[in-house]
């Protein structure tokens, strides 16, 4: 990198980071304001540090209840998607079979469908199956929507692992499955982490299907819960901001935790050559 380029690049990076952080910063600030500050015109920048909105979000708006629902749905989606995607990706990466490119291309096409197009059919199917207003009724479409991406990411990871490792494992006495979980999975851990994070974030943030399928507040997830905070006459901006902060924190924590795993996994040299 040449010297004159560096300041330009650095300011670009700063701009991008600030730009993406701005909305987040604003609702973090808002969440610590009082009702008077929130409605003040011209707006006040610095909050007085009150935590009243957090208290009312937790107590009046049953925040923990929504968090519980979101954890169940996003957690189940992540686990199921990984359990299904891992053997699928392994097979696509390793086995000699016809039409591999078509399968991968097909998966990509499915992932590209606009949600609104499949909303009607999904609703009808779930109605017949009795899946409306249940957690599994939401997990099911989430899994099928996240699977294509999960399979793609994991297939790439498995393809990058040298075939010789598996053959060595076979000769050392492993069956195909043993080679997969004793040798390949530990090495594909960064790929598994990445897939898990993306799937979890998707399921945690998803709003459209959650709104469509869950009309009963008992089962609603966080995004739907936040959206339905609005009362008859007022818009509870403070509570929404407080809830959004709480909803975002787990994602940040998860990403930071898994990031370590990703980096240490990537730095492990698999094979020389």
């Amino acid at each position, binding site marked *: 990198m040449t010297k004159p380029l560096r300041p330009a690049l650095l300011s670009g990076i700063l701009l991008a980071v600030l730009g993406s952080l701005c909305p987040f910063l604003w609702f973090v600030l808002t969440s610590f304001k009082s009702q008077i500050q929130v409605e003040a015109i011209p707006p006040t920048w610095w909050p007085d540090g009150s935590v009243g909105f957090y208290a009312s979000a937790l107590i009046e708006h049953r925040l923990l209840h929504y968090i519980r629902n979101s954890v169940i749905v996003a957690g189940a989606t992540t686990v199921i998607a990984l359990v299904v995607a891992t053997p699928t990706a392994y097979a696509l990466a390793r086995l000699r079979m016809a039409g591999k490119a078509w399968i991968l291309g097909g998966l990509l096409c499915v992932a590209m469908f606009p949600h609104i197009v499949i909303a009607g059919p999904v609703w009808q199917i779930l109605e017949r199956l009795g899946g409306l207003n249940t957690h599994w009724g939401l997990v099911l479409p989430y899994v099928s929507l996240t699977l294509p991406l999960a399979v793609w990411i994991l297939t790439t990871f498995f393809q990058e692992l*040298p075939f*010789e*490792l598996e*053959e*060595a*494992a*076979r*000769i*050392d*006495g*492993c069956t195909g499955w*043993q080679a997969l979980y004793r*040798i390949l999975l*530990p*090495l594909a851990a960064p790929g598994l982490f990445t897939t898990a994070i993306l799937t979890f974030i998707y399921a945690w943030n998803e709003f459209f299907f959650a709104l469509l399928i869950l009309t009963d507040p008992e089962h609603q997830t966080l995004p739907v819960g936040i959206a339905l905070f609005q009362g008859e006459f007022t818009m509870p901006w403070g509570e929404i901001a407080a809830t959004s902060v709480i909803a975002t924190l787990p994602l940040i924590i998860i990403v930071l935790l898994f990031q370590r795993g990703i980096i240490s996994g990537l730095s*492990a*040299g*698999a*094979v*020389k*050559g």
Partner: protein
Amino acid sequence: MAGLALRHIEKTFGRTRVLHDVSLEAGEGEFVVLLGPSGCGKSTLLRIIAGLEPQTHGSVHIGGQCVDTLPPPDRDIAMVFQHYALYPHLTVRENLAFGLKMRQEPKPVIEQRLAETAALLEIHDLLDRKPRELSGGQQQRVAMGRAIVRKPQLFLFDEPLSNLDARLRASMRVELKKLHQRLGTTMVYVTHDQAEAMTLGHTIAVMNHGRIQQIGRPDQIYHEPGNPFVAGFIGNPPMNLFEGSYRLHQRELEFRVGDLTLKVPFQVHDPAGTDAGTATLGVRPEDVTFDPPGSRHVAVAGTIDVIENLGGDSVVYLIVEGQPLVTRTSPVLRQHAGDSVTAYMKKIHLFINENRVPLPSS
């Protein structure tokens, strides 16, 4: 009892046939080298022996037992891979023990074998390291250790030294030879490096285009190559090969290529029963001298094109009647490019219809 027997192995991938009727036997404790250029099918053959790849036809016998239906773990073999294939997330100790653990050997046995192997390969200090903390040569040792620790009936090596630098390769070659002498286990070794093949093998099987071209002891392969491919593949610099026409006279054979006519004073029995036709004539660079040798030789006059002085000997590129002729002479030749010289061919190889025609040597 044979250590390894391959009977009429054929292999096709889709419509491409990569192995044609390969048969090979190795005695107990023998070191067999599969030698050939890349893409000749030697690695595929090794993988078939290992059971990693099913053959299309034919059968594999290890220790007298047909193993065609057995998966790799049940074949009592160990394999050393070209890129070592050490498990990156396990320590050296765990890498070595992995195969024994999978076979549910009792702990004391594993400990004892580990100690033996570490002693044999001098890798005690490395046992607690991860593969990425090892140098190329150390990884190579561990890869061999992982094979040795299992005490298999048959070792398979897939170009194990090709990732090492030249100096390390030479020293590992010697170690490998010592190792074989110490263990006395049957070994099959795949390489494209003729020096490895010549120094390591009891038997060399030269392969090309999915066929075995010749099986023999290293000296047989060198001195009596069965066809022009083997003749050209073994030797450094490679054998001079001329494709031309021949005519048989009473006591000698006349060979023509371009403007060059060679009168070969050896009695030849033409296998085809005709006394003229096309043939390939070969002469090794080290069989060309600038001093008249014994009675029977072929003298040619040429000019020196290039001299490469290698210290102990020199490689001289001659032009003889428009044909290039490479010679390797010792001691170093005290002449210069452009000089006219007479060269003497001591030993000539003749191939008619791709087959060797024996000539009595001088």
